[in-house]
């Protein structure tokens, strides 16, 4: 059973720790235990919402997609055979719903890039320029504290393909390993590697483009 938690080297509270109790909760939920169902929702709702929000960049849509995800999880929980962990199974539902949503709103990425090039957030762009020019790695706390820089990073993320953005977010936000990402996206491990490599290379290019 998966016991790994969300990688957080920045000292943030570990809100996304996968528990071995998932199997018990799922079994209780199958028997109609509403308390177990609520516990499953409470356990994963923030993490799923966070990923969905980072993928679709719209809070309302993210909330609705999160709601749809949990409804589908509860409805489909009798069909969950345990071949994978509940954790990856739940994220698979969430990511698939969000990817479908993104396909229906495919023009969104282009608009976000236009926004990143606009004049707002000079402070963030300046800090981004410093980070990229500095030979050393930046202080994570300082980066997280700069709201404008975070917005720029989000806009850059939105310029990625949906699949590339998904692997980056699952890896760098959710902290999944490559195997889990492959399970969630139902792709090969090598595909995960190449997608992450291309996605990060693309991020660097876009950031450099923004600063020019």
């Amino acid at each position, binding site marked *: 059973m998966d016991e790994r938690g969300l990688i957080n080297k920045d000292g943030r509270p570990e809100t996304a720790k996968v528990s071995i109790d998932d199997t018990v909760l799922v079994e209780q939920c199958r028997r109609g235990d509403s308390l177990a169902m609520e516990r499953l929702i409470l356990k994963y709702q923030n993490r799923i*919402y966070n990923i969905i929000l980072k993928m679709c960049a719209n809070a309302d849509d993210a909330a609705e997609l999160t709601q749809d995800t949990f409804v589908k999880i509860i409805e489909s929980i009798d069909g969950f055979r345990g071949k994978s962990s509940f954790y990856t199974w739940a994220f698979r539902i969430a990511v698939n719903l969000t990817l479908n949503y993104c396909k229906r709103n495919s023009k969104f990425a282009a608009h976000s890039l236009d926004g990143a090039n606009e004049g707002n957030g000079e402070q963030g762009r300046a800090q981004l320029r410093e980070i990229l020019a500095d030979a050393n*790695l930046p202080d994570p706390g300082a980066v997280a504290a700069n709201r404008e820089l975070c917005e720029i990073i989000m806009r850059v993320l939105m310029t990625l393909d949906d699949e590339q953005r998904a692997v*980056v977010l699952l890896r760098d936000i959710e902290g999944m390993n490559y195997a889990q990402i492959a399970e969630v996206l139902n792709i090969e491990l090598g595909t995960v590697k190449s997608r992450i490599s291309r996605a990060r290379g693309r991020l660097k290019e876009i950031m450099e483009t923004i600063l020019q």
Partner: protein
Amino acid sequence: MKENQNIDELLNSFIDGELGPREQTEVQRLVAHDAEVAGKLRELQKCRLMVSVLPFDDAPAEITQDIKAALERKTLLGARHSDFEQRRGELHLFARKFAAAAAMFLLVVALGAVVYTIVSPGDAKHKKVAVDKWSQPVKKVVVQKSEIKEVAVSKPVASPQVVVEKPVAKVEDFTGKVELRVRDVAAADAFIHRAFEDNGLTSQSSPVGTGRKVYSIDCSEQTLKSFLGQLKGIWSRFDSTRLLVNETAVVDGVTAEQIYNIAEQASLTGQITTAKNFAALNNMNQRLPGKEVMTAMSDKQDDLANIPKPVLTAKEKAKEAAVTEGAKRIHLTIVITPNK
């Protein structure tokens, strides 16, 4: 290009901790000896860091309740849908049952019609035909002595009837008396005795005073026929002949063949009726002129004359007696009276 891709993937796997110890060592060595690779690694690390430090957005506080509400709505809708489906299923089931019942009813009606067509006495058309044929004979099955026969009857019947007919009355014996008048009784007696012997009959003549001869015969029909055929040779010598049938009917001027014809009738009524007919006929003949000629002609055509004399042995006689036992018997008394 391919090599750069491999290096990028290798470096990304390195910073994500997806490499084994050996690969990790190789990457570290590569980075240590190649500034370009080291720079690329640092850029990738920066990208990764900038994404990973993005603020964590908690779900809205009400999302849990929203999820619950959505689930309840789904459940209610599902229940309603289920109710609707159940009602629709019930209607469908009712329709199927109704259709099955209707089909069964039609099948029963069709079978009933077929059966009615087969077993019914007939429809209106057939009834009319039956009325038209009312007066025509209808076959009736008659059972006689456990034997079924079909006979035609004139009475109309709606359907074939089975009736038991009374058994036919047993053939009745003949009892008669022949009175013969002759001048030469002795000659007649000798002839009759001879006829008795030739036909295997026992002479039972009983001499009575005044010259009368009385003979009693108890024989079969066939023997009587033979006897009378032989007796016919002297029949013309009798002055008068008379036959009394069962002491009821009298036939004057009776002939030998008439005696046989009367005696062969199966019933007593038939015997008497035939006797009366012969009596009337003989009476007419007596009154017609030239009766002697007619009698002679009649005698020549007599079948009895052609009957060969039976020549029976003692065994054959016994056998005949056994065979004829239980059959019709002839009880004939012959009285010869001298005609002075």
